């Protein structure tokens, strides 16, 4: 890991992102503050994907030709890089990828669904899947700050199995309310699913504490790491979670590729979700057996060039340095909290300090709907997200219908934070609320 001794060279970084040089809405300089939704991609990632397609494109893990071999190596090489990036086992003992704790999915949403559906499928699987079975009396615990992707699949699993869905509340400050931890995570709990960092509040949750509590009662943990893995050093082994998901497109990679991490012994016992080609061991007309993980969870020809590009994104992030990126975003977040906090009528929804807080800053502007604020910002070139950011129950909890969210990444600058603050003041002028 690199050190934070030298700050991030943001000018150098920005030069790698062609899109940041464009203008929008009649010659306005683009100020892209929506990386929490999707990040931009550097030339190195695009080059890697193009090079793969131009030199080695083939269906992986099949085909008796050189291209198939090279494509498989590139795909599995990406898996290994990603495993190293998040501190988990890359496998490789008995052949490419065998034993890897990294499963490629379409995105993080699919990763959560994979676990939830596989747990549902445990009902009809063998005795090795016993620990994944859920039924009436069992409990699934989530939090009120979850993205819909880590809430709705659990609601659905509860409906299908008769299990009960419960959740941690959120404090007025926007932190997880753990005051009833011992009551919520109990002998009936089978799953505890929660975000590492809230995509709305920016709050970084105490993963270790929750994982320890879950382990004490024998419950499985599922971590939504979409907003953490792209923005700082993350080590799933050190965090002690059982499963974790994240998406490639939020970490300089392409869309259509995501990652599920699962502890090896769990992946080995987990029944499949999607079935078909590639994921089998033996197929007969009446019945089939399944490949060991990760192949068991990757039915069909996978998204190969996207995986290769995500590997390149991990290389890029590693070269810049995850500590350095976290420190850079910390500075931007501090600037935004200060600048927005000084505007009368602006209410920040989430922690006001930068302790255990990432670079998603959501806010409400008194007297102006978030959509209207966003429109004024857009007219000035400032790209933000507006609405409930796929966390509707959280917005209800925070007593706000919709918020404006600015989210930062390694290529953003303090000048851009200033542009955001100025644009919010302009929105107030335009709508005459100040």
């Amino acid at each position, binding site marked *: 890991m690199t050190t934070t001794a030298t700050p991030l060279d943001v000018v150098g970084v920005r030069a790698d992102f062609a899109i940041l040089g464009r203008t929008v809405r009649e010659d306005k300089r683009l100020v892209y503050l929506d990386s929490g939704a999707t990040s931009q991609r550097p030339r190195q990632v695009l080059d890697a994907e193009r090079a793969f397609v131009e030199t080695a494109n083939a269906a992986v893990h099949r085909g008796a030709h050189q291209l198939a071999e090279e494509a498989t190596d590139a795909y599995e090489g990406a898996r290994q890089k990603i495993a190293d990036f998040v501190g988990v086992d890359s496998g490789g003992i008995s052949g490419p990828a065998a034993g890897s704790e990294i499963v490629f999915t379409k995105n993080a949403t699919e990763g959560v669904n994979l676990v939830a559906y596989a747990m549902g499928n445990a009902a009809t699987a063998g005795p090795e899947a016993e620990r994944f079975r859920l039924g009436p009396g069992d409990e699934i615990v989530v939090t009120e700050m979850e993205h819909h992707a880590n809430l709705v699949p659990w609601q659905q699993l509860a409906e299908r199995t008769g299990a009960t869905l419960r959740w941690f509340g959120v404090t007025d400050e926007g932190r997880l309310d753990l005051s009833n931890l011992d009551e919520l995570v109990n002998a009936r709990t089978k799953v505890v699913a929660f975000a590492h960092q809230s995509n709305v509040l920016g709050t970084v949750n105490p993963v270790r504490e929750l994982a320890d509590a879950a382990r004490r009662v024998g419950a499985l943990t599922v971590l939504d790491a979409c907003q953490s893995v792209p923005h700082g050093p993350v080590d799933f082994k050190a965090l002690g979670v059982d499963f974790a998901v994240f998406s490639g497109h939020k970490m300089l990679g392409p869309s259509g590729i995501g990652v599920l991490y699962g502890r090896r012994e769990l992946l080995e016992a987990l029944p499949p979700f999607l079935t078909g080609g590639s994921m089998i061991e033996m197929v007969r007309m009446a019945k089939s057996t399944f490949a060991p993980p990760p192949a068991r969870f990757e039915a069909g020809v996978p998204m190969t060039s996207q995986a290769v590009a995500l590997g390149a994104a991990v290389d890029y992030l590693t070269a810049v340095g995850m500590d350095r990126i976290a420190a850079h975003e910390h500075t931007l977040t501090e600037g935004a909290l200060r600048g927005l906090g000084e505007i009368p009528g602006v209410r920040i929804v989430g922690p006001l300090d930068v302790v255990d807080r990432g670079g998603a800053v959501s806010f409400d502007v008194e007297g102006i*709907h*978030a*959509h209207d604020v966003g*429109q004024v910002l857009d*007219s000035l070139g400032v790209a933000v997200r*507006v*609405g409930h950011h796929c966390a509707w129950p959280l917005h209800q909890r925070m007593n706000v219908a*919709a918020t404006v969210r600015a989210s930062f990444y390694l290529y953003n600058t303090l000048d851009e934070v200033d542009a955001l603050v100025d644009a919010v003041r302009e929105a107030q002028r*335009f709508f005459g609320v100040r």
Partner: protein
Amino acid sequence: MQLQQMYQEIILDHYKNPHGRGLRDPFDAESHQINPTCGDEVTLRVSLDGDTVRDVSYDGQGCSISQASTSVLTDLVVGKPVGEAFKKMDAFVELMQGRGQVEPDEDVLEDGIAFAGVAKYPARVKCALLGWMAFKDAVARSEGAKA
């Protein structure tokens, strides 16, 4: 400036001083519509007198575009035969889905022509149509209830 094209004075006036706002009795049917991307919502009631729209009342929360559009709706349809109200709705929908290429008819849409600029922003079209979808649904429900 583009912003002024979108937020015409007429729209801002309707937003700040909405016409016909508030839920009223009696009514024949009610519709609740949600824009799932932003969480905006409107509850709208229609009261029909035979074939005529006697009253439209509504409540909700949302952006200036959705609120102003619903306010304009009440101006356009109250007191009109249902058929004529639907013709106005069709004209408004056509305007909103026209990507800024449709020339609105002021005789038909009155203040509604101010939304021509909004049609250039596809993400806001849903906002402008929220109240109208509620109106269409409520009329269908009241007719369904009578049938």
